[in-house]
């Protein structure tokens, strides 16, 4: 087991932890806005860490480029969807959660 394998393992576990946290947030948070907040962490950071971990194992630079492209696409999509959903939710009058 080489050094890059160990780094990959750490990155993958960290990414999976973010996915877990995102899911827990999705299940436990009280309203749309806070759930959106939890969701984007899983989208951006979790997938980012996984991509970083897998890119270390990639056989060529083309694969690394493709992985980064996928991550950038998901970032872009997540940001757009989060923004759209929030704007429309505000327009529809979904109340912000107050403790």
């Amino acid at each position, binding site marked *: *087991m080489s050094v890059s*394998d160990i780094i*990959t*393992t750490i990155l*993958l*576990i960290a*990414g*999976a932890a973010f*996915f*877990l946290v*995102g*899911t827990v947030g*999705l*299940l436990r948070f009280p309203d*749309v806005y806070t*759930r*959106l907040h939890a*969701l984007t962490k*899983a*989208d951006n950071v*979790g*997938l980012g860490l*996984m*991509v970083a971990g*897998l890119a270390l*194992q990639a056989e060529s630079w083309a*694969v690394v480029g*493709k*992985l980064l*492209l*996928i991550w950038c*696409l*998901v970032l872009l*999509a*997540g940001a*757009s*969807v989060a923004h*759209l*959903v929030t704007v*429309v*939710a505000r*327009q*529809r*009058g*979904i109340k912000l959660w107050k403790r």
Partner: protein
Amino acid sequence: MFMEMLYIGMALFLLLTLVAGLWRILRGPTAADRMLAAQLFGTTAVACLLLLAQALEQPPLRDVALVFALLAVVAAVAFVRRAWVADRETEE
């Protein structure tokens, strides 16, 4: 061998979080909650596909993940622009 097991194990773990997230689709009080859960599913499936591509040594799966990342938005945008806007008009 350890790395393959790690990849498959991670993919299994992601699948389990995905199944847990189904609960939000089933319960979600508003339509937006359900759609958000579907969005999270898309991202989780992308991560799962990337892991499987590495574990099964099938590079074409990365292209599948790419298509997923591109097209997961379509449903969400269709939801926000069509299904949801119609709902809002009726409330006023």
